[in-house]
């Protein structure tokens, strides 16, 4: 008798589990899809993602931030940065030409780290870096010109008092 009851209980629990499975798939049927249709819909990358290196251009002063200190060119492990600068009439050095060969660049970010004048940066919005000719990968300062939008402006550093306050 127990085995017969077990047989029917088995069938009923099996049936109930099938219904549960169907409810899961039916729930997903009405959920939002995750697909992003790439050429039409572009995924907004996180603001700090390393997609492309750009030269920051200061719109107010109408000049690049770069002072041609050569720190980036020295930091580059592949020597793919070439730049020149001159001393301007106000006595400050200004970059005249800047060339970055993206065909050898490995996007290690050492140049951005080495830059002490907030002149080089990674940007997130430009990530379609493929080109038809290898020569197009050699970009100059005009191609790398980038004006920082206001919402990405660097925040003023927190005063050291907060750290001291946390310790206290």
């Amino acid at each position, binding site marked *: 008798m127990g085995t017969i009851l077990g047989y029917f209980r088995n*069938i009923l629990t099996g049936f109930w589990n099938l219904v549960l*499975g*169907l409810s899961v798939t039916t729930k*997903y*049927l009405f959920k939002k899809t995750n697909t992003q249709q790439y050429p039409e819909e572009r995924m907004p990358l996180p603001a700090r993602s390393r997609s492309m290196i750009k030269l920051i251009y200061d719109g107010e002063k109408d000049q690049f931030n770069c002072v041609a200190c050569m720190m980036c060119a020295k930091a580059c492990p592949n020597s793919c940065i070439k730049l020149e600068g001159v001393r301007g009439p106000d006595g400050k050095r200004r970059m005249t030409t800047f060339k970055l060969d993206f065909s050898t660049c490995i996007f290690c970010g050492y140049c951005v780290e080495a830059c002490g004048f907030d002149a080089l940066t990674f940007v997130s919005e430009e990530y379609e870096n493929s080109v038809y000719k290898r020569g197009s990968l050699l970009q100059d300062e005009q191609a790398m010109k980038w004006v920082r939008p206001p919402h990405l402006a660097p925040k003023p550093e927190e005063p050291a008092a907060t750290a001291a306050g946390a310790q206290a």
Partner: protein
Amino acid sequence: MISGEKLVQLVSSLLQQVYALLDLSAYAGILDRVVCAVVMFGFVAVFVMFLVWMERKVSAHMQSRIGPNRVGPLGLLQTLADAIKLTTKEDVRPAKRDKIPYFIAPILAFVATFMGMVVVPFDNKMVVADLNIGVLYIIAITSFTVIAILSAGWSSNNKYSLLGGFRSAAQIVSYEVPLVLSLVPVIMITGKLNFSGIVQYQQQAGYWFVFPQFVAFITFIASATAEANRAPFDIPEAESELTGGFHTEYSGVKFAMFFLGEYVAVVVSSAVAATVFLGGWLPPLHFLGFIPGFVWFMLKVLLIIYLIMAFRWTFPRLRVDQLMDFGWKVLIPVTILNILVTGFVVLLFGKGA
């Protein structure tokens, strides 16, 4: 107000005038049949295209994808593009095939299931041939697919095809039994083998048979899914085990025929389930009667087809021995028990219970 009966009268009177115009009135009987066949074929072909699109959409959304959306609005024409591609493809045939069965199998696979559509009542009086023994006819004629699949498997001269054909034969033969047995209680209650008669009985009784015969409904859907060789019962064409199963060696139009046949089998069994268990063309509530019956019928068919599609994209495939276990040790005893219980109830309370 439009209804299926009026639509049929309108079309037939129109046809009469066309026959008279072309001086063909003497052949009206045959021509009516030809027109019915052509219309039915067109309907089935378009409906199957829609179903393929629907299946791809349903499966995609169940997996949080979008599915076809490039060809035509919402990707509706994707299946048409696939059909054009299939029909223009080269017909590759194995050199050592068994020529005649190889040629006949895809035709038989489609025709056998397509003939089932003949007795399906879309609305009151809107049926190609309202056979007195419609239930028997549909069960008999759709079983021909097993011959088609067996001969396809045998004549392809390919081990995968042969194994697929054998598996399919074993499966269809064993699931034919619960399929028929789950229709028997309804026949016992109504005393009719005629689909329109069964629907009219439900109209008079005021309930659909899915409520008193829920077990039979479930077993029917399960065995119909197995009959149509669809997942989770798709071991005859299990990709991971048998590449393509019985249609491994078929390409182009012949493959399209098998594909069409599979979907028509789904349509036929859904139509039978909708007619027998869900009240066919009857509206679910009385005040909804202003919507024509064939719309209700198609909605019910689509509901059951959705259920069968959800089975495919939810349940994992059964092993061969599990498949046989499920057929012989679960479905058949349950249906027989259901018949026994129904028999007692009919004996106690009379045929109208």
